């Protein structure tokens, strides 16, 4: 996510865009445990399916601007469990979600109170694999209050926790998030600390938490750095995600990182752990995630409808040929 960027800078840092060569990881399966599909297009679902993404988790987050009323939260949570899950299913991708009050909007206390009241209605729904993403943004007292309340909710519901660590003052924010989770008696094995970097990874792993990494251009983790981290720390309790959202982000970050890992000599087994298996192990603690569901999802009927709506707009065919230069 965020913020100021320019085409000139993109080019200076990244060069001209290049087509992604999937052949290095052809046939592998991927799980993106953090991606905001609500803000992505249907084309992204197609591309993800083609690249081997078989399942994903969509954490509840903010919309880029603060919501001003409770109903917007209610509709958003409902869409994660409803329309978005359906849209994903149309591409053979199993869609799970985590539900929570994000850190930025925790600062609107009167609204946050109301959101806390409706959260229990959503966290027990089928396919909700955790409370998330919660934690700190600018590390205010209000953020801490709602983080703690949601940790208690997770404990009561027996759900894993997906912790968003702040962009700014990350090291302290990460340490504080872990300290508070332990203070509430949570098993670090049920807590996924997200958006790690070179400065936070060691402590997160040493203290027994899961360390998730977001491959996101410019702001978070680059995938060359990611390869080095897996080389240094090994694949245990590490997972890779895209956190793709409305920013300049890449929903293919997980398969691309796997391809790069392959090219840089990591074993297939290690790649599988950090881009697929570890996330399943961590979030399956919710009792709401079963690999068998991924296969069931494979039998796609693109003519299905969701409450009378379909992703196929007037007269569209179920699939377009992306290799053709003609868009008809």
């Amino acid at each position, binding site marked *: *996510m*965020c*913020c*100021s960027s320019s085409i000139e800078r993109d080019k200076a840092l990244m060069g001209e865009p290049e087509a992604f060569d999937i052949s290095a990881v052809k046939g592998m399966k991927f799980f993106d445990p953090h991606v905001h599909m609500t803000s992505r297009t249907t084309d992204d679902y197609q591309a993800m399916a083609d690249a081997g993404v078989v399942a994903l988790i969509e954490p509840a987050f903010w919309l*880029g*601007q*603060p919501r*001003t009323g409770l109903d917007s939260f209610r509709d958003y949570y409902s869409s994660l469990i409803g329309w978005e899950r359906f849209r994903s299913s149309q591409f053979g991708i199993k869609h799970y979600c985590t539900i929570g009050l994000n850190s*930025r909007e925790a*600062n*609107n206390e009167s609204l946050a109170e109301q959101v806390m009241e409706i959260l229990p209605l959503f966290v027990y729904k089928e396919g909700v694999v955790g409370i998330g993403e919660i934690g700190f*943004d*600018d*590390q*205010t007292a209000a953020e801490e209050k709602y983080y703690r309340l949601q940790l208690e909710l997770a404990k009561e519901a027996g759900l894993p926790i997906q912790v968003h660590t702040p*962009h*700014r*003052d*990350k*090291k*302290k924010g990460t340490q504080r998030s872990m300290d508070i989770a332990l203070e509430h008696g949570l098993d670090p094995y049920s807590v996924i600390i997200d958006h790690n*970097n*070179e*400065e936070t990874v060691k402590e997160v792993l040493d203290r027994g938490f899961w360390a998730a990494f977001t491959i996101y251009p410019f702001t978070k*983790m*680059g995938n060359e*750095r990611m390869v080095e981290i897996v080389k240094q720390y090994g694949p245990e309790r590490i997972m890779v995600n895209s956190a793709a959202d409305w920013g300049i982000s890449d929903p293919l970050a997980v398969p691309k990182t796997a391809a790069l890992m392959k090219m840089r000599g990591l074993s297939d087994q290690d790649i599988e752990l950090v881009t697929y298996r570890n996330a399943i192990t961590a979030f399956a603690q919710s009792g709401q995630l079963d690999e068998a569901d991924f296969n069931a999802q494979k039998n796609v009927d693109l003519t299905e409808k969701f409450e009378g709506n379909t992703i196929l707009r007037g007269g569209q065919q179920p699939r377009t040929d992306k290799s053709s230069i003609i868009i008809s």
Partner: protein
Amino acid sequence: MKRDDTMAIQEALSAIVKSNVSADSQNWLESVIQSADQSNKISQAFVMVPRKTGKSVIQLNEAQKVSIAAAGISYISNWTIDRLCRVWLLSNLNAADQEKLYATVDRLFLSAEMSEAVALYSALPFLAHPEIWVKRCAEGIRSNIGSVLEAIMENNPYPSENLDDAAWNQLVLKAFFTEKDIRHIVGLDERANLELALTLIDYANERWAAGRKVHPQLWRLVGKFINAEIFEHLKVGLMHYDQIEQRAIALAVAQSDYQPAKDYIHTFPELKLALSEGNLNWDSF
């Protein structure tokens, strides 16, 4: 901004608004201000302003330049007329009923599009009861819209005069993150604090670990607080041999009282020379 200046500011703004809008628009603005139902009319007019005024950058005559300089608001000289007009309208809201004032402005914030949000945050120093806008200002820093952040961070005296340390530090940190012009943050040096310095050093370490450069202005906020621990981080920075970062660290050290760091800088002949020539200053970064 000092309360005694309020009248002078109000007069300066009125004069500039008048000389930058048509006679029709001037009459319309007058009728809005003088309306019996002032807060509703101003709210509506606030939204309509660009249709009536256009969006050109304001033109100032010499006398106006002098008056805004005297009032300490020279920074408005590159504003557009719609932004200035909106700020001026808000500054005319009746301040006697604090609750009503708050409700009126808050409602505008809740439905603001980008240019409106820019004008609203720009208006904070011109509104009565500065203490009631603190939370709103802190909320604005959470925005990720560049122009809105600039309206809060750059050339705006409200944050440094009113925010608590936590929100202030967040503003500065976010300004580095979003690549705002740090030199335009009002009160930057006066509000430097140890907590912020330590946070910025963590940030610098993160940048280095990611193979990125560190903004030289960051060291400006560290200088005053250099101690044995911070000195160790500075040494790491100096070892990157990035000439701009090195010079900024050298300048920060020169402005500190920590002798071991001063002695260490002198072991770099080129930094010693740059300092002795006396032409290193924060405006040069």
